């Protein structure tokens, strides 16, 4: 019996104007995988991640999440998305953590977390608050539940971002350079929260420049450059014995 992959992307193309950012990306992520997507700036890794939950639309290719088709391309090469309500439903299977946090500044930490469960899933206040408190305890920020995002440090903001995404009970988590906007001394606390999530067998796709995280936590590393996947393999394969010159050059530069 074949398992349905959590993420199935086939031949995904995306261009911004004349610039082709994704030149046919194919990737499958299985349940429980922690995939680190690495590569130089401008390699298209963030764009690819954003295509998966419809923050960008693809021009060609096929994307399915847990077997449900988000976008597909017909024989004539025309890309079709499923209808809006289904796009939203499929997207909401994925939690997203942003480079710039994108917390809601007018809401407290607690309100940030319970907003979507309340308005989208119609979960009652009494039911969601204990769950939100549990999530905040997990990321070590229960004492900040009444604070506004502007009163938090970058690392705290990102941990709220993770808790907010988890409150929707996603089946997998997408991380778009979650530590890139942080001061170096604040990345540790965010990576710890992510590591803990990985230990709980959450399926994760992480765009990152944190090579240590990629090496120590991920079950698979995917190296992208110039809109293509150059190579992928286990962390030890990629870090100890990279096959391609471009991968070697990149790793030498990063480590």
């Amino acid at each position, binding site marked *: 019996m074949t398992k349905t992959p959590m993420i199935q992307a086939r031949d995904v193309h995306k261009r911004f104007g004349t610039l082709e950012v994704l030149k046919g990306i194919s990737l499958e992520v299985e349940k429980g995988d922690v995939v680190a997507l690495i590569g130089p700036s401008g390699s298209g890794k963030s764009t690819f991640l954003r295509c998966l*939950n*419809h*923050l960008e639309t693809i021009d060609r290719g096929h994307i399915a999440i847990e077997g449900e088709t988000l976008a597909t391309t017909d024989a004539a090469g025309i890309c079709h998305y499923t209808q*809006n309500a289904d796009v*939203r*439903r499929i*997207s*909401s299977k*994925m*939690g*997203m953590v*942003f480079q*710039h946090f*994108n*917390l*809601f*500044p*007018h*809401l407290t930490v607690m309100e940030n977390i319970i*907003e*979507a469960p309340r*308005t*989208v*899933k119609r979960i009652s206040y009494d039911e969601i608050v204990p769950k939100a408190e549990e999530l905040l305890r997990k990321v070590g920020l229960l004492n900040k539940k009444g604070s*506004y*995002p*502007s009163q938090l440090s970058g690392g705290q903001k990102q941990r709220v971002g993770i808790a*907010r*995404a988890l409150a*929707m009970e996603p089946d997998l988590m997408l991380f778009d350079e979650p530590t890139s906007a942080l001061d170096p001394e604040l990345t540790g606390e965010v990576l710890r929260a992510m590591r803990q999530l990985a230990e709980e067998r959450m399926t994760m796709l992480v765009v990152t420049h944190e090579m240590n995280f990629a090496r120590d936590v991920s079950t698979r590393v995917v190296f992208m450059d110039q809109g293509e996947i150059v190579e992928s393999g286990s962390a030890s394969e990629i870090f100890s014995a990279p096959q391609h010159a471009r991968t070697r050059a990149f790793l030498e530069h990063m480590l």
Partner: protein
Amino acid sequence: MNYILEIIGPLLDGTIVTLQVFVITLLISLPLGLALALIRVSGLRFASTLVSGYIWLMRGTPLMLQMLFVYFALPFVPVIGVRLPDFPAAIVAFALNYAAYFAEIFRSGIQSVDRGQYEAAHALGMNYTQTMRRIILPQVVKRIIPPVSNETITLVKDTSLIYVLAMNDLLRAARGIVQRDFTTMPFTVAAAFYLLMTLVLTWGFHRLEKHYAVYEG
């Protein structure tokens, strides 16, 4: 002093007319302006162009002319022609005019909200209406308080234009007494009334700003 007490009655009557025009105009033009702004940012090309044309028309001609048009010319316009009494005519002109200004204020507020807010809402599964109502518009309110306060204070004074429809607002009441009694004292009292009204508004908007100051951004 006795004289002031003597004229204060008719001036207060005028103030009530002024306040009626002010309050009703706000109650109509704020929601209407918000609706127009939402159409403009909706991405519906045709509707958006139509709204742009409307805003151009309303900001591009004098409010007094618009009021005269509604009162004197509208009855003769085919199809939509309707004869309005002076008070409703004034309200229609004021509400339509101020809605155009408010629409631009709302639009600038909506467009000043970071794209990341929409993306976060989308990633959390919120639809457009939920995103606007729960995430974007609450942030817009904070940002537009200063320009809305400006417009609102202007409106208090613009209400004096209704004198052209022979309505007895505060300023026309004052002018009537000036012409009758050959003294400019009523003007001074009227000025004090206007200042009092704008003082209350300034204080109110200040309170509102403080209320929203609990969060940054």
